């Protein structure tokens, strides 16, 4: 009997090793805290809660997950908390490109290098929006009028993604815009609907309801190609009908905001690998696809070297704009 049983044991061991590599690796032993670097209801809060729900529904880990909002200081509160929790693998930070952009332009007490990057999970697009009854039909019309008039561009926060894009539009389109910062994209959308602004550069989900309701419409999207068609938003148009800005003569080919996931610094590679794997499993579920579709984002998954490369490139780019504007600190 010796030979057969040994063989079986070998086979069983190899099957086990093949299907469950996670067993030997690190597993969480106590509840996990998800830190959303935004207030309740915002885009970053939504993704943290969506991931929490998917993990709980499919029991992707045995440990309970709690979502905590630390959105003070445009998200800095959450990142500072992550920095202070160095070595603690039970704190997962959900943020945006803020993690590397904010330290460039304001004296916050963290840098993205204080954290362990896990993944960039979704990309939010940017569009150029005008009021429904504005005379402009294309980005070209808009730029022509902006050159002579004095246009007010609204956006969320100061020296953040929205203002960086505004400055890029100024440079590429050779116009001068007055940038007015508000607390959030939702607030900015209402200001445009009320006619207090001429335009803004909201993400699709921030102005979706407003577009359907006929208070504002997108002129173009800052993306290399048109967005996927999807369902119609208004009676006649959907996201796929919005032309790209480049094809309308506003040559900014790509500008997007990644939703990023981090661990605190000084965690072991095993611990980081566990979360990369966990996020990959989350992304494979139909609930995730549903979330991406409802919020009109682009599904992506960057991790490891790819994610690092993305950060470096974006950082270079923002540094250049911030330098030209004299925003850089230190």
């Amino acid at each position, binding site marked *: 009997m010796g030979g057969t049983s040994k063989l079986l044991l070998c086979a069983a061991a190899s099957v086990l090793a093949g299907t469950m590599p996670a067993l030997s690796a690190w597993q969480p032993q106590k509840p996990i805290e998800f830190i959303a670097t935004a207030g309740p209801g915002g885009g970053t809060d939504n993704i943290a809660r969506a991931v929490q729900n998917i993990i709980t529904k499919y029991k992707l880990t045995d440990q309970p997950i709690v979502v905590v909002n630390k959105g003070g200081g445009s998200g800095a509160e959450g990142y500072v908390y992550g920095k202070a929790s160095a070595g603690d693998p039970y704190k997962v930070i959900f943020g945006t490109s803020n993690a590397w952009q904010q330290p460039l332009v*304001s004296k916050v007490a963290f840098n993205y290098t204080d954290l362990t990057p896990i993944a960039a999970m979704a990309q939010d697009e940017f569009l150029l929006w005008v009021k429904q009854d504005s005379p402009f039909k294309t980005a070209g019309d808009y730029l022509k009028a902006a050159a002579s008039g004095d246009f007010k561009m609204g956006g969320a926060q*100061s020296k953040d993604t929205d203002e960086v894009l505004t400055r890029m539009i100024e440079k590429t389109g050779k116009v001068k815009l007055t940038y007015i*910062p508000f607390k959030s994209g939702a607030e900015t959308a209402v200001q445009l609907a009320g006619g207090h602004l001429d335009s803004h550069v909201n993400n699709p989900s921030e102005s979706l309801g407003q577009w359907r309701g006929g208070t504002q419409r997108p002129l173009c999207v800052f993306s290399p190609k048109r967005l996927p068609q999807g369902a119609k938003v208004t009676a006649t148009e959907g996201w796929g009908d919005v032309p790209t800005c480049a094809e309308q003569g506003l040559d900014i080919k790509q500008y997007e905001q990644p939703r990023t996931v981090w661990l605190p610094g000084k965690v072991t590679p095993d611990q980081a690998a566990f979360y990369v794997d966990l996020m990959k499993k989350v992304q494979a579920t139909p609930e995730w696809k549903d979330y991406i579709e409802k919020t009109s984002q682009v599904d992506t998954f960057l991790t490891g070297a790819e994610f690092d490369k993305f950060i470096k490139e974006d950082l270079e780019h923002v540094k250049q704009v911030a330098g030209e504007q004299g925003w850089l600190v230190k």
Partner: protein
Amino acid sequence: MDNLSELLHGFTIAVTVPHLALMVVGVLLGILVGVLPGLGAPNGVSLLLPLTFGMQPVSAIILLSSMYWGALFGGSVTSILFNIPGEPSSVATTFDGYPMARDGRPTTALATAFGSAAFGALIGVILITFLASWVAQVALAFGPAEYFAVYFLAFASFVGMGGAAPIKTVVALAIGFAIAAIGIDTVSGSVRLTMGVDELVKGVNFVVAVMGLFGIGELLVAVEEEFHARAVSSKIDWREVFRAVGRLPRHSVALLRSAAIGCWMGITPGGPTAASFMSYGIARRFSRRGRYFGTGEVEGIISPETADHAAGTSALLPMLSLGIPGSATAAVMMGGLMIWGLNPGPMLFVDQKDFVWGLIASMYVGNIVAVALVLLTVPVFAALMRIPFVIIAPLIVIICVVGAYSVSNSYLDVVTMLGFGIVGYLFKKLFYPLAPLVLAIVIGDKAEDAFRQSMLMSKGSLGIFFANKLVTCLIVGGVALLLLPLVLQLARLLHKPAPPTNETTAQEKVII
């Protein structure tokens, strides 16, 4: 009358056994999170949110909004009994509610608060029912200049309303503005006044400040003054609950005025906190018994409570029709709407009639359920006042510490809260008013943002504050409220010479 038939249809959705059960559960949970300071409606709603993902959107919003009503009512309980506001918007309720409870009338104070709150909520819902489309248009007219004018009006209705020396009011305001400036500035994006403490980048949370100023501050004063160190012997009388509610119609002017202020601030959206402060300030100015305010006046409870609930209720309208949340809780619910696959905005009223009108009908029913439940609990809460001080004092400290910690799981907040306790004690001892300080902490940074956004838009010209009828009216109204005491005093001086005071110069400083 289209709206009326829609509403009736809504009632057929809201008044079903499962939905009524959800309302009771929601309201009870709401009262619980409202009573526990630091937890509050926004946190309670976000904790409950994941449970609703499997539900029908109508059922989910009924559960969450019922919780919101419960929390609004519950927030007043600790304000009145222990001087600890559970919600920012119930701070103004402490001014007269707490003295009345201390005076041995906790039942009257609680019943008055709940009764007037229910009235405010009712007016808010009626407004939503009949004026939904008009209201949406009004809210759109508000740009940064108009926002600033509304905040200015709130400050103006509260500043120099007597009580403390005007110069002390100005000092308290200035300290409040400085505290509000801590953290990241929206307009410039730079970090301000963090004094080397990295975590302060998040700013000072309002609940943390208020629990220290009121809860701990009051406790320190009480420990020092012997007479507080005994329990209040309050008679618990069921009939007093109904008598207090029955007396409300006598104050119909105050009720209607406060409801109007509340609805206006909820829609614009200045928010429930600014509404309750403004309503209290104006009531104090115009009530015949104004000088007794702060000692346990009935109208001092009615005014902030009615306005708070009217604003809290009508704040849901801009959320549904425009996608701008009028309060923190509305912001969480809006997140929920998106997850349920609904898009707040003008189309909601066209696309999702069942949802919208089911919700509006549930506001009527939910508030009735809430007020019935909460009135039943009055004797239980009032009995808390009989617990001796030696037991209640440590409990208050525990509530404040746990409350401060649970705001964002941070020890710094606990330390800050205790610091504010000392500030509150010093303010009381030196006769500085706390209300202007609190008002400046709550809406100081919003007013600053709105002012600087206006200046960016107008390229530095103050003319933007007189650019249209709406903003001009608001600014003129604010200036008039500021100048009113001054004019009254001048009139008095002309009639009979009185000893001159330093009031005039201080008033001018306030205006500048």
